[in-house]
């Protein structure tokens, strides 16, 4: 046990407390403040005082109150039992808190983060007498039906494994010992790790596998690699949280760490009630069995919000070190940055842009840098993908948090207010978004279909052309355009409605496999290629649009299951047949019977998600 030191409070300004008498305390050590022993962290050392930020409501705290510290940094407890659990920003279990003190979070409550009584069936993988190294996997246990929890030698420990006991243990039991010149290490199933210190790995690798999210606009147009970083900026009402939820539900990471950082309470409740019920198609198990949640909602103490993203990413690193692929969703990093600003302002730091402290960019960079595709200390591959939502004030992307974030992420999924207003979800703009991971993951997609990049780029160029033409349409209407350009508008509308738009609540459409994605887009492009030929032969856009087989296209996404892609082939044949029938009708003159009033208008195909 570390030595305890005592001091006393001399000033209180919101969550910032000044204390004296804490000799020997270090930066980022934990201090317990006042009669309620509120948890705080040392954030500044002055020659005459120690500055502590308190993670709980400190109303009533007064000068003269006692401060104690064990000179330990703020840490999370890493061990079995994290999965399916929900914590506040400083890893206090919210379920336990509700059992202990009801619906509200009372201050000063302290509970162990992991169940100390639960027994885990531990299976050693290494025998006593072996030499062990930091990060080595020495055993495993079943943490949830989806997750095998690997027990690791903690970083910094190596030597001879002198004992290891199999069977049922709690996290409090001593299950192995490692002897070295430095002494004897008594190992348990759980260990502490300081939240602000990244866990070590052997080497960083280049990301090369896409994180498949099942969301077409992301996977196909703006893909992210496992180990990569992405930002989702969007004003309120553009669907940031819905997009984060969809990713957390359907992406193919092994472990999800969902950090609700300064957001709505009811949204966390939605996750909490949804995830135990939602079944992952790949394994038939509830999604909660691979998820760890951190909830520090907007009304919970601000300093704990600041630390919540570190708590989350440290847990992610722990699972990465077991060789897992982990996805971290942080919603929203703007609230985290605001917490930083609020605390900086109370400390009297000189502000940079819009009151944010000058170190905002550094902190953001440090956070996103904890993502990556690595070789773990035990020689396995593991990765952390970080996806951060950004909430720019007024939806203005030129504000500091969005700007700095875009410097440190390589994938930018810009949410568009116009799309959201038209209820086009996910409202990820195909004009303002970008990804830098295309070259990294190109090979993966090419193994699936060699034409992937060509298909993507062609579809993208149609969308860009559409964007340009829309400016003209706004002025003169679409009827004034030549048929070829009208057809570009029509095909672009088809790409938007039959491909980009995706219904997160439709049983089939919610997750779209990569195989289905490429088949869907190929069918649309087929329409484009054949259509251009038809137009040359004198067929009108109106006639193409009026074909039943063409209007059925928007329903493919919600009617063809991922497991039955043969239907796509059948559809493709029907499409070819339908278009052929138009061709054969020319040039002998053609009865315009199929046409109805709205057929020319591409927007009538919008949706199809009803």
């Amino acid at each position, binding site marked *: 046990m570390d030595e305890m030191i005592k001091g006393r409070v*001399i*000033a*209180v*300004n*919101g969550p910032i407390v000044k204390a004296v008498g804490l000799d020997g305390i270090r930066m980022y050590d934990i201090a317990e403040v006042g009669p309620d022993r509120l948890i705080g962290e040392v954030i500044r050392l002055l020659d005459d005082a120690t500055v502590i930020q308190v993670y709980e*409501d400190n*109303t*009533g*705290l*007064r*000068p*003269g109150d006692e401060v104690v510290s064990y000179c330990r940094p703020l840490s999370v407890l890493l061990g079995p039992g994290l999965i399916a659990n*929900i914590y506040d920003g400083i890893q206090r279990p*919210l*379920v336990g808190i*509700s059992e202990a003190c*009801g*619906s*509200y*979070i009372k*201050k000063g409550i302290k509970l162990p983060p992991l169940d100390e009584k639960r027994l885990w069936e531990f299976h050693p993988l290494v025998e006593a007498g072996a030499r062990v190294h930091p990060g080595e996997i020495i055993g495993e246990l079943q943490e949830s039906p989806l997750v095998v929890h690997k027990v690791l030698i903690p970083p910094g420990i190596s030597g001879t494994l002198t004992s290891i006991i199999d069977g049922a243990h709690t996290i409090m039991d001593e299950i192995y010992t490692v002897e070295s010149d430095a002494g004897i290490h008594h190992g348990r199933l759980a260990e502490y790790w300081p939240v602000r210190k990244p866990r070590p790995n052997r080497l960083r690798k280049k990301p090369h596998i896409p994180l498949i999210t099942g969301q077409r606009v992301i996977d196909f147009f703006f893909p992210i690699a496992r180990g990569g970083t992405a930002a989702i900026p969007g*004003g*309120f*009402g553009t669907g940031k949280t819905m997009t984060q939820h969809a990713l957390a539900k359907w992406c193919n990471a092994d472990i999800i760490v969902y950090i*609700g950082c300064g957001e709505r*309470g*009811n949204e966390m*409740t939605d996750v*909490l009630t949804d995830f135990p019920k939602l079944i992952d198609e790949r394994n038939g198990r509830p999604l909660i069995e691979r998820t760890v949640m951190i909830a520090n*909602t*907007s*009304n*919970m103490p*601000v300093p704990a919000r600041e630390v919540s993203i570190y708590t989350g990413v440290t847990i992610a690193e722990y699972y990465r070190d077991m060789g897992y692929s982990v996805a971290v969703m942080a919603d929203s990093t703007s609230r985290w940055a*605001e917490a930083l*600003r*609020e605390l900086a*302002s109370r400390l009297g730091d000189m*502000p940079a842009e*819009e*009151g944010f402290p000058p170190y905002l960019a550094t902190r953001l960079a440090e956070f996103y840098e904890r993502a990556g595709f690595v070789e773990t200390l035990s020689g396995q591959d593991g990765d952390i993908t970080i996806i951060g939502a950004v*909430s720019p*004030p*007024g*939806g*203005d992307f030129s504000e500091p948090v969005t700007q700095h974030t875009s410097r440190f992420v390589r994938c930018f999924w810009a949410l568009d207010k116009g799309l959201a*207003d*038209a*209820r086009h979800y996910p409202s990820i703009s195909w004009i303002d978004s970008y990804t830098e991971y295309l070259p990294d993951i190109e090979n993966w997609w090419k193994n699936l279909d060699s034409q992937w990049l060509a298909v993507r780029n062609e579809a993208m160029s149609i969308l860009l052309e559409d964007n340009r033409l829309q400016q003209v349409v*706004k*002025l*003169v*209407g679409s*009827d004034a355009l030549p048929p070829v350009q009208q057809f570009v508008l029509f095909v672009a509308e088809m790409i938007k409605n039959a491909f980009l738009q995706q219904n997160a609540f439709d049983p089939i459409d919610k997750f779209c496999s990569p195989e289905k994605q490429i088949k869907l887009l190929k069918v649309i492009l087929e329409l484009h290629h054949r259509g251009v030929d038809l137009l040359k032969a004198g067929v009108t856009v109106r006639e193409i649009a009026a074909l039943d087989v063409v209007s059925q296209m*928007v329903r493919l996404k919600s009617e063809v299951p991922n497991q039955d892609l043969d239907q796509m082939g059948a559809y493709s044949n029907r499409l070819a047949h339908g278009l052929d029938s138009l061709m054969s009708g020319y040039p002998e003159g053609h009865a315009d019977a199929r046409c109805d*009033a*709205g*057929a020319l208008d591409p927007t009538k195909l919008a*949706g199809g998600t*009803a």
Partner: protein
Amino acid sequence: MNTEIEYTRLSGISGPLIFVEGVRGVGLGEIVEIRDASGAVRMGQTLEVDEQRAVVQVFEGTSGLAMQGLRVAFVGKALEIPVDRDMLGRVFDGLGRPIDGSPQVISDRMMNVNGLPVNPWSREYPRDFIQTGISAIDGMNTLIRGQKLPIFSGSGMPHNLIAAQIARQARILTAEEEFIVIFAAMGVKFDVAQFFIDSLQESGVLTHSALFLSLADAPSIERLVTPRVALTLAEYLAFEEGMHVLVILTDMTNYCEALRELSSSRGEIPSRKGYPGYLYSDLAAIYERAGRLKGHKGSITQMPILTMPSDDISHPVPDLTGYITEGQIVLDRELFNKGIYPPIAGLPSLSRLMKDGIGVGRTRNDHAQVAAQLFASYAKVKRIRALAAIVGEEELSDVDKIYLKFGAAFEEQFLSQDNEENRSIEQTLDIGWRMLSILPRDELYRITKEEIQRYYMPERGVK
């Protein structure tokens, strides 16, 4: 306890703040009683304390206070109010003191006005549809019991009429349970408050309402306490007495301005438009006190009203509010100028909890589809109107012209209704179908064939 000790030495008075010297053992957020030379007592709260000095925010303002002759006592605890069922039917000032001539509330239940954060685990996800009788809300931006849904308005627009209509008409369809209305006024004019009182009185709702009034002539700093006092009573009634409470907070822009005033007198570093960096957290501490709790019968539904300075929705107050609340009802100047009541904007309005509170067994099977179709078709009307403004209506295609007809009918018949008119959800949806029936069948792409077969009646459509 140091209630006995009175301090007299001040080192400054600035805006709503006084700086008291020589204090010992005073805690953060403690209530302070300030007695001036005439013996009048004001209340305040400590914002910052150190070993010699306390910074005190005076709720009633510092007007008329002098550096000499003040006696300051620290009560030793945060602001608490007595709460009781008997507070219904009463009118209080912004700090929770009766101003209706009846005696002080006596209760042995005292509650801290700052509340405690709700454990997200303990929340119950809101799902019960509230019928407000207003088509634009019920049909397209459904209010759910336990939701926080603000009205974004502008000066001169009828937000108060709408709020009062909702307060009168709000019903739960599944159960015969009445709403309790708690009304908190921050910095609004006397006539606005009187309008609410009259409106509640006429409809007989006043007996189960409580009003907290911090009017425009009250010190601005008092407004910072008013919503907290109101919500404290709401929490008691909802979660200890099992009632369903509708809290109307007006005007949140005035609240935020009071916060800005306080922040600037403390010399804090401002963020946007001079508002403090913690405006978001501070608003969240108010708005998040809505919802339902597991194992409790009652609920708190919040309807904050705010006026957007120059109708600017990106102003910090509506902007940060929109990030916290579960949607927003936006009033539209153009509709208002056309004489449409309620002028609820079709597109920027949103209810985030709608999807889980409507449909079979809650409202009607076709509800979600009708709403989605109305949104989409009305969005198209807006585009066509923009085009018509340039090329002229004559140049539009036939379908586009039908859309314009739909747009006009939608605004005049669906959105528009009388201030006293209370439409059932069936009526609202039927009117919705009548509007959609103006459009050709093929244009209804967000509605399934089955529903179209059942409800689409072109002969009933207004041509």
